[in-house]
C-alpha cells in the first residue's frame, strides 16, 4: 500500500473528486517537503478562494478574512514538514484556517465590523432574488444590499460553532464527515448543530423566508 492510498483510506472524504484532489495534493506536498518551495504556490492558488470564503463568512469582514487566510497559508507553509498525510491536505488546511478564525473571533468578541464583498449574481442567485422582489435597477440593488446585511447579521447572531457548521456545509459545500474532521467532533454533533443553526436563521430571516 503506497502513501497515496494510505492517505485516501484515512481520509473521510468519500467522493471520487475529493479523492483525486487529495491524491494530487499529496504529491505537491511531498514536493514541497523535498525542498521545492515554489510548488506550494499551486496549493495557494487552488485553495485561496475557498479558504477565504469560509473565513469571510465566519467573520463577515473582508479585511480580517484576507489577513486570516494569509496567516493560514503561512502556518501551513511553516508546518508542511509535519504534515504526514494522516488526512487530506485540504482538510488539514481547513482545520488551520478554522482554528485561526475561532481564535480571532474569541479575541475580538466585542469588536464586530462588517465589510462586505460584492454579490456576484449567477443564474441561481438571480433566480432567488427575483423570487424575493420585483424591483428593478437601483431599487433592486438596494434590496440586495439590505438582504446581504440581514443575512450577515443573522449569521453573526449564531454561536461560533453553529456559524462554523453552517458556513462549512451551506457555503463551502463540505460534507458532514469532512466538517466533523475539521471541527474535531462527531458527525451527529455536526448534524445537530446544523439543524439548530438553520432554525435560528429561519427565525431571524422570517420576513424573507416564504415556506
Amino acid at each position, binding site marked *: 500500500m503506497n502513501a497515496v492510498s494510505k492517505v485516501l483510506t484515512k481520509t473521510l472524504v468519500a467522493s471520487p473528486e475529493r479523492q483525486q484532489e487529495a491524491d494530487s495534493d499529496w504529491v505537491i506536498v511531498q514536493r514541497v517537503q523535498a525542498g521545492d518551495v515554489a510548488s506550494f504556490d499551486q496549493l*495557494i492558488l487552488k485553495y*485561496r*478562494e475557498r479558504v*477565504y*470564503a469560509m473565513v*469571510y*463568512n465566519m467573520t463577515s469582514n*473582508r479585511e480580517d478574512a*484576507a489577513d486570516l*487566510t*494569509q*496567516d493560514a*497559508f*503561512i502556518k501551513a*507553509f*511553516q508546518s508542511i514538514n*509535519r504534515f504526514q498525510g494522516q488526512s487530506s491536505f485540504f482538510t488539514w488546511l481547513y482545520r488551520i484556517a478554522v482554528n485561526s478564525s475561532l481564535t480571532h473571533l474569541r479575541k475580538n468578541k466585542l469588536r464586530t465590523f462588517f465589510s*462586505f*464583498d*460584492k*454579490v*456576484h*449574481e*449567477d443564474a*441561481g*442567485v438571480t433566480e*432567488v*432574488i*427575483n*423570487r*424575493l422582489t*420585483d424591483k428593478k435597477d437601483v431599487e433592486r440593488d438596494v434590496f*440586495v444590499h439590505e*438582504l*446581504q446585511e440581514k*443575512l*450577515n447579521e443573522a*449569521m453573526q447572531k449564531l454561536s461560533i460553532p453553529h456559524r462554523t457548521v*453552517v458556513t462549512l456545509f*451551506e*457555503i463551502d459545500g463540505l460534507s458532514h464527515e469532512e466538517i466533523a474532521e475539521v471541527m474535531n467532533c462527531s458527525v451527529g454533533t455536526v448534524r445537530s448543530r446544523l439543524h439548530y443553526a*438553520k432554525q435560528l*436563521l*429561519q427565525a431571524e*430571516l422570517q420576513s*424573507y*423566508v*416564504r*415556506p
Partner: protein
Amino acid sequence: MMIPDRSSEKVTIEDLLRLKRAERPSPEFWTCFEQDLRAKQLAAIVEKRPWWHALRLPQAARAVARFQVPLGSAAVLTLSFIVVSHYHGQPVSPTGEDSPAVATSAQPVATAVAMSSSAEPVTATVAMAEPTVVAVAQPVVSEPKPVEVLTAQQAPMEVAMTSASAPVARPTELTSMIPWGLGQTAGTNDASAEQAPVSTRLIQTSLQVAATSDLGVTTLLGNALVDEGQLQASRMPVAEVKPAVAQTTSPRELRRAKILAGLVLADNADGSDYARAIHGRDVAANDLSEDQLYDSARRLGVGGDRLTLKF
C-alpha cells in the same frame, strides 16, 4: 406584458445562503492578496523561530502517549513510596512516644485553682528544679488533653488529668496547689489561712489518686523539700507528667509521697500543731536521709581485704 407575481413563490434558508455564497471579492483583491502573502511568507522565512519550536513537542508527546499507563502507574508508585518513607522518617519525639500524631499534638499541662472566696482564679508561674509527676492511667485516649486541677471551697474538687499515653513533656505552668504557693499568690494571711483546708484536700486527693492508680505517684521533690530554704521559697517544682508507661510504682515512692504530704501539712499548721508539724518534718528529713543512706549502703562493696564505698 404582465410581470408575474413571484411573491408567493417558496424561498428557503438554503436559497438565502446561496446568496451569501455569491459574495466574492473582485480580481483586484486577489492581486493585493498575493502581494501581501508573499511579503508575509518572506518575513516568516527570515524570522527566527523560537528554540522550543525545534523540540517537536507534539511528536514527543505522541511517542510518550503509548506508555501513558505504565508511566502513570510508576509515577503514582514513586510518589506513594516517597510519601510513606517521609512519613516513617520523621524524628521521634524526645519523650519516646511512638505515635507521631500524639507527639506533635502534645499540649502543655495547665493547672488552675479557682477559689470561691476571691471569685477569681489565682495563677502562679512556677519554675522548677526537679519535676513532680502526677499521672493517672487511662486505657487509650487518642488526643492528649490538658491537665486541669480546679479547687474550690464549696465545690467539689475536680481533677481532670492527662491520659496515660499523653506525651506531655514540656515544663508547665502550675498553679499553686501547695499551700505556701497559694498564700503568697493570694498576698494575705487570711487568705492563706482559708486556703489551708483547700490545700489539704488537694494533697489528700492527689494521694488518693496516686494510691488507687496503677502508676501511683512519683514524687521527686525529695531532698529539695528537706532544705528549709527551699521550703520557704515561693516557687515549687512544676509537675512534669512523664509518659505513664515509663513510670513504675514502688513502695518507696509511695512512702516518699506520704512523707511529702506530711511536710505540706506541717508547713500550713499554726498554733499548737506547729511544734508537732516541725517534729514531723524532722522525722521526714531523717527518713529521707536514711533512705539515701540505704541507697549509699547498696553501693558498698567488699572485695578481698578492701572495702569500697561508691558515692
